[in-house]
């Protein structure tokens, strides 16, 4: 991402330039959203958390010592917020999943798909979301997740297979 955002833009943000920060938000929003969706499993929570992360980034950007590390830095902030949200919602999450299992299937492919994405284990959902949001580039995913390329391909493959099982389960249950 940082080859699209110049260090000078980050420096301007650190000097309080909100217009510069708007550029940063537009450039990195999608990646942070994919990360949050991958961890949290639903778009509503992901959106809230991205917003929280971006605002937190704004308040703290003056403390960032290495401007070229903005992307991993904002991703870590977002990741921490996701973990805190999951911790707070643990009981509520179990109730939602139970409700999802018991509820009648809703009309619309995207609802089925979202439900299935939500049911994926996080270690599969995260690379899958990052893969599809990032133009299906397994190499980039491997770098971001700090795993090997073959490891990333394996996770994406397993995620796709598991997603297929979840979607066909719902079809059989209808």
């Amino acid at each position, binding site marked *: 991402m940082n080859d699209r955002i110049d260090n000078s833009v980050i420096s301007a943000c650190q000097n309080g330039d909100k217009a510069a920060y708007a550029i940063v938000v537009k450039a990195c929003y999608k990646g942070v959203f994919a990360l949050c969706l991958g961890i949290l499993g639903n778009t509503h929570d992901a959106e*809230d958390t991205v917003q929280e992360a971006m605002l937190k980034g704004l308040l703290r950007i003056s403390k960032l010592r290495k401007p070229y590390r903005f992307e991993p830095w904002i991703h870590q902030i977002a990741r921490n917020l996701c*973990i805190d949200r999951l911790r707070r919602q643990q009981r509520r999450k179990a109730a939602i999943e139970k409700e999802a299992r018991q509820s009648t299937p809703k009309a619309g492919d*995207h609802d089925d798909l979202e439900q299935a994405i939500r049911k994926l284990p996080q270690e599969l959902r995260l690379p899958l979301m990052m*893969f*599809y949001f990032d133009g299906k580039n397994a190499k980039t995913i491997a770098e971001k997740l700090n795993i090997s390329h073959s490891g990333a391909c394996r996770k994406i*493959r397993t995620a*796709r297979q598991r997603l297929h099982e979840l979607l066909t389960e719902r079809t059989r249950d209808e």
Partner: protein
Amino acid sequence: MNSDCDNMKDHIADLVTGILSQAQARDVEQHLKDCPACRQYAQALRSEDAMLTGFVSGMDADMPTRQERILQAIDNSNQSGKTTSLSAWRIIMKSPITKLSTAAAIIVVVALSLTVVNQTATDLLAETLKASHSVRSLHIKNFLASQAEPIESWVEFHPNGTLKNMRFHKPAWVTPSDGESVIVWKDNIMQLWIKKKNLLSIVSDKEIAQQALTAIEQLDPKVSVESLEQELQQGNVEVDIDEPSNKAEPIIVTATSTEQLDESPLHRMVLSIDRATKLVNVMKLYSLKDGEYHLEVTVEYYEYNEPVDEQMFTLTDLPDDVIRMDQTAQEIGVPQGDLTNEETAIEVTRQFLEALIAKDYAEAGRIFGAVPAERIQKTYGSIRFIRIIEIGQPKKKLLTGEYRTPCKVEIERDGQTIIWEKDSYARPAHGQPNRWELTGGFIGF
């Protein structure tokens, strides 16, 4: 699908996802031509791939709207370069008054009250630090996540906060080869009792004692709180404070690293602070792996400022036959003088072997770091050392700083004369400048 098809499933998934090589893709496509079941499976995956792509495209279409909401919130915010954390955010969110429905409104409230409420984390840590400096004695239990038995210590501090006396119990799991051990530090003398080896080492050099002392100092709550306060001021952590309405419950301070520090796996510290005394009761350290926090270390603090029995800092329950290696009572090893390190290692080895040839076990023990003569005799007494054939070139071990020296000695054992080839280990003696001692090799203890 047959068994070949089972093997093909992974390749089909990779083909659809687009991560297969061209050559492999051709092979898979050829199989699909001939296998209706696999063709159906591939079609299903392609359909789901299209759904995923459509799902993402839908998100993409909404991105500008989502971004706009954030930009509006940014415009409304009072950005200050001096604010360091959003701990205020969480404190305010706990208040029923501020459970507002829109993100924008929350941001406004945070912006207005950020300067005032942000003091809370810093104030609490400052109070805790001040309280910690008043501590003169303490009992600590340090649990590693994988172990049920803690490393336990009792410490006394000088009025200036430096370590005065210490007792440190190391369970067997820390160093299985040594087993359980006890270290006491008092009046600048360290006694290390290795129970499994029935060995008591007494040294006065703080360098040896430093390892245990450093471990204790790192568990000192004021060190942790002081470090946390600095990290907060530098913006490296964000702090969440939880004050339960039940006044009997402690205050929970959660500090999370904001930067991805690859060299530091500990991302989160949670302190449990007594409301009345502002002293730390429990400290928990967590690592972050695969998006989840894992508890790595729990430190429990007890008996703040309760008088510690003087006997705690001496070893009173030693067995009568414990092997005493007292380096405070005599000069050990050999002087280095003008010799190089390699020459000294050779000289130490030579003098030790000559002492064994002469059956001077007291001298041999003195060179071997103050091992008692009777212990040397017990180990080597059944062997007649005849002559030194060769002492080879020493090599330094980078990890320990010892010099490993190969030796050949003619010995007589069980009526047989043989050539004994062993390595000796030598290093500078701790606490005795310019003197070197043997530390190992030959027959160990």
